[in-house]
């Protein structure tokens, strides 16, 4: 058989709509996991014993159970307790929770890396714990963890392909349809592979730029 990509041309718009859905899911889940990751990172760096333990248990659990199992747990489980949400919302929630476990690690490392002298300066000038945290600790930690959070996003883009198993027609889901319509699975999945790789490559470039931009004023104090 000849390797013929032209069979895909009529389906490009269809695939693009899937890509848009992937972008939407990942964008929302990124926000979700950074928010969750921040909360968990705070709990993990706090002195409260039970909050710390609970946060650790969450990270440990969701990093050691396959995403597809987590996804099915929510997708089939939530209706069981009377919560009916669509595949899109389920996907965003599941990705946020799984991503949050990784994001919390990145943010926690950012918090722990903050120079103690800076915190002492805030303390002696009378800033409350809350203000110190929201105005100094978090902004610095988020800046320094741009790169690791970028890795979380890239992983999330790759993981989002699994959402095709709960009938969500994001990029991989659409590609499955095109593959069975054209009887050209090899071409379709090969192109899909390259598209994902290109996508994550572009995202990694964007992250490097963002990191440079956000940290240009921090140079010298943060490597």
């Amino acid at each position, binding site marked *: 058989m000849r390797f013929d990509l032209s069979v895909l041309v009529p389906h490009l718009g269809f695939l693009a709509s899937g890509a848009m859905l992937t972008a939407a899911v990942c964008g929302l889940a990124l926000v979700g996991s950074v928010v969750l990751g921040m909360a968990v990172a705070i709990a993990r760096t706090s002195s409260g014993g039970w909050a710390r333990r609970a946060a650790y248990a969450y990270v440990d659990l969701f990093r050691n159970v396959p995403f597809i199992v987590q996804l099915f747990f929510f997708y089939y489980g939530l209706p069981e307790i009377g919560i009916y949400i669509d595949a899109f919302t389920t996907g965003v929630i599941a990705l946020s929770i799984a991503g949050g476990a990784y994001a919390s690690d990145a943010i926690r490392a950012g918090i722990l890396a903050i120079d103690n002298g800076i915190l002492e*300066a805030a303390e002696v000038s009378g*800033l409350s714990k809350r203000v110190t945290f929201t105005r100094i600790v978090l902004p610095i930690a988020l800046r320094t963890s741009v790169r690791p959070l970028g890795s979380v996003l890239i992983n999330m883009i790759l993981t989002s392909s699994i959402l095709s198993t709960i009938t969500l027609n994001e990029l991989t889901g659409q590609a499955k349809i095109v593959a069975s319509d054209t009887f050209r699975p090899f071409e379709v999945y090969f192109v899909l592979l390259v598209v994902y790789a290109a996508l994550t490559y572009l995202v990694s470039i964007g992250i490097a730029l963002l990191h440079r931009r956000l940290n240009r004023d921090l140079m010298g104090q943060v490597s």
Partner: protein
Amino acid sequence: MLNVENVRKTFGAVTVLDGVNLTVKPGEVVSVLGSSGSGKSTLIRCINGLERLDGGRITVDGFDVSRPKELAEARKRSGTVFQLFNLYPHMTALRNITLAPIEVLKRPKAEAEAEGRALLASVGLEDRADAYPAQLSGGQRQRVGICRALAMKPSYLLLDEVTSALDPEMTAEVLNILAKLAGNGTTMVFVTHEIEFARQISDRIVFLEKGVLLVDLPTRDFFAQDGGLAQPRVAQFLSKMRKD
């Protein structure tokens, strides 16, 4: 009045401050000398509440730093300038200065910024208000650090070796500003290795040795043969510092 009464501080088995007494009256400039490890930084950190005392008492205008309820008031009355500046790296020079006035003293933003700019102008940095710490030289950073402390209008300025991370030229920049502050009546507790400068601006000089406050004399007496120099440790310290 800043009162340090019989303060003791230990780290594990090591006694770092051993029965230190010190009084600083409004308008006074008191320099703290002593060799490395004698406890100078620890004394400053006890005064601004960064270290917990193991004995004795410190009050700032009557507020006891060991009482959690009074610590905030005590801290409002003292300002600290750090050896390594400790500026907030993600904030501009101006934001570094206005953050605490706005958040702690609840000053209106516009007022705080106007005062911040005036402070920057007074240290020759009027055009660097929007620069980030990384874009400033060491001397400039420390001048911002001084402004940040002054913005809270403290009764007492605590300075811990604020020029020891700077090269001679930058040191001169910063010392000029401190001399100006001393001249217009700012109360200072000044930990330093700059003996000559301390001699010029101080009303009193105290000498710490292994956590004990050995000497507490008016500046002129401290450098007199029958005053501070009569203490062998002080004489030794001064001759060593002058040689370096």
